[in-house]
């Protein structure tokens, strides 16, 4: 196709350039990236170092004059053996997978619904961004009120419709569903907006050409749109996954990790370790292990969806 030929031509031109120019291509990239990398390194070096360093120490909580003891990997071992940590990891995985998938499906569906021209499209899109605009703390409190037994609004409405209203926050099974709902509600606007922007970049002729060739809606979606959007989708999923891992405000306000430990996540549990148990070392160890877990998942995701170079057509 024309594209590959064009690229080959240009590539030849590139190698024909003098050696000096080629070096500066990489140098250019380096210099463009430098300010942000330096800034980030400066900002994060001390806190991160502090975190990692302290995860190897145990603070003597109630003897303020005693210096923290070096305990090597003991904090990590303790965390791995803590049965609540297993529950927290399980809940976190469940929450992340469920809310990211749901947010993705809903966001994609809406982006597709808004793809073709529609009256009032811009207004609708702006309105659908509103869950993002509400601070998670406020959203959490609001949803708690909606979900409460006896005077919660949702069950009141369901009662009107003669449908049974579950104990959203009091039933251990439904508590997880409740936080997944709230997690999805706060995160699908992001998916939607990024996909809308991504779809906007899809060249019209490709779609038209495919239609002329006889491709139906689903085929166009599956063989043209989605593959074109792959890099965008990958980034969306990665960012959503990381954010879902880090969710704290909404869960803390809705259930504080309860009932029992049915909604305890890595974030809420690390928080508990730090401020209930005053065990900053273990909290640090847990956070670091959480990061490793997320990294693992991200690598998996990148393997599944990533690509080594631009797609060929």
């Amino acid at each position, binding site marked *: 196709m024309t594209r590959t030929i*064009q*690229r080959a031509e*240009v590539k030849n031109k590139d190698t024909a350039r003098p050696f000096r120019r080629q070096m500066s*291509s*990489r*140098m*250019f*990239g*380096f*210099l*463009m*990236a*430098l*300010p*942000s990398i330096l*800034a980030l390194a400066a*900002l994060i070096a001390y*806190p*991160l170092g*502090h*975190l990692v360093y302290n995860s190897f120490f145990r603070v003597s909580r109630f003897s303020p004059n005693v210096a923290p003891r070096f305990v090597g990997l003991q904090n990590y071992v303790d965390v791995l053996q803590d049965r609540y940590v297993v529950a927290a990891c399980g809940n976190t995985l469940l929450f992340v997978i469920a809310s990211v998938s749901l947010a993705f499906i809903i966001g994609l569906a*809406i982006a597709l*619904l808004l793809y073709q021209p529609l009256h009032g499209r*811009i207004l609708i899109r*702006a309105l*659908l*961004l*509103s*869950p993002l*605009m*509400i*601070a998670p*703390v*406020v*959203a959490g*409190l*609001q949803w708690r009120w909606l979900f409460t037994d006896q005077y*919660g609004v949702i069950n009141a409405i369901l009662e009107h419709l003669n449908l049974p209203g579950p104990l959203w926050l009091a039933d251990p099974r439904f508590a997880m569903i409740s936080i997944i709902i709230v997690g999805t*509600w706060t995160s699908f606007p992001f998916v939607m*907006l990024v996909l809308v*922007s991504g779809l*906007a*970049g899809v060249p019209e002729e490709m779609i038209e050409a495919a239609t002329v060739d006889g491709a139906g809606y689903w085929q166009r979606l599956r063989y043209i749109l989605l593959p074109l959007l792959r*890099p*965008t989708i*990958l*980034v969306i999923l*990665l960012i959503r996954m*990381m954010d879902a891992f*880090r969710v*704290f*405000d909404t869960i803390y306000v809705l259930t504080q990790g309860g009932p029992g430990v049915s909604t305890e996540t890595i*974030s809420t549990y*690390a928080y508990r370790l730090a401020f209930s148990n005053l065990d*900053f070392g273990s*909290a640090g160890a847990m*956070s670091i292990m*959480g990061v490793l877990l997320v*990294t693992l998942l*991200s690598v998996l995701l990148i393997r599944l969806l990533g690509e080594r170079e631009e797609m060929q057509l």
Partner: protein
Amino acid sequence: MKQSLLVQAGRYAALVIILILTLFPILWIMLTAFKGPQEISAVPPIFFIRQPTLANFSDAFGFNIHVALGNSVIVASVTTALSMILSVPAAYAFARYPFPGSQVLLTAVLMVRMIPGIALIIPFFRLMNRLNLLNTHSALIITYLSFQIPFAIWLMESFFRALPRELEEAAMMDGCSRFGAFWSIICPLAAVGLATTAIFCAIASWNEFLYAVTLTRTSVSQTGPVAISAGVTSYQIFWGRMAASATIYVLPVLMFNLLLQRFIVQGITIGAVKG
């Protein structure tokens, strides 16, 4: 591409349902802002207000929501501006001009964003304490930058990568410098992505709570989420005041969003023309 009336109607129906489900909690907050205390805690809940009141709003101002709003504006705008200025060139570099170690750096940048916020609260507090920056806007701006920059880099990188290379090649063959090509050709085309990223950066700073409550002490630097949370006390939850504060607080973001939506529309039109 024209669609049958049925399909169009179907699309509208689906969107309306989604709109209702999405907006319901928010509308409920706004409704609550106009209710008196009796109607707020009514069991069963009241949908149609009998005695609307503005008392909650004057309460909110009495508790200085406008001061918190001012702080949030400062923090959000500076953070967004700085993160865009720093991250966009970097994202472009990662997308188009990789250099040795750039893949590793990109992954490292992403890993920074994976750290749970609560893990770094105490180190950041100690750092800001040493720098004497506690209870200032700078403390928040600096901390927010640390997780906005990775986000902005990653998001913009994907937008840049989605643009076809030929454009820069063509511009440079015409004598444009690399930076010139970036500035005058790519950026306008990536306006959609830039606006999107800016919106998200601004909203993230606007709504952040944990660092805001930890690194600030008084109304000099306390942002909106902290001021709004003051409605939750150990005795009762002042829903009226909180709802009013939250409603007031949402307005600037809404306006910023609508403002940037124009860019997204423009970007889409430019894209169509280019296509």
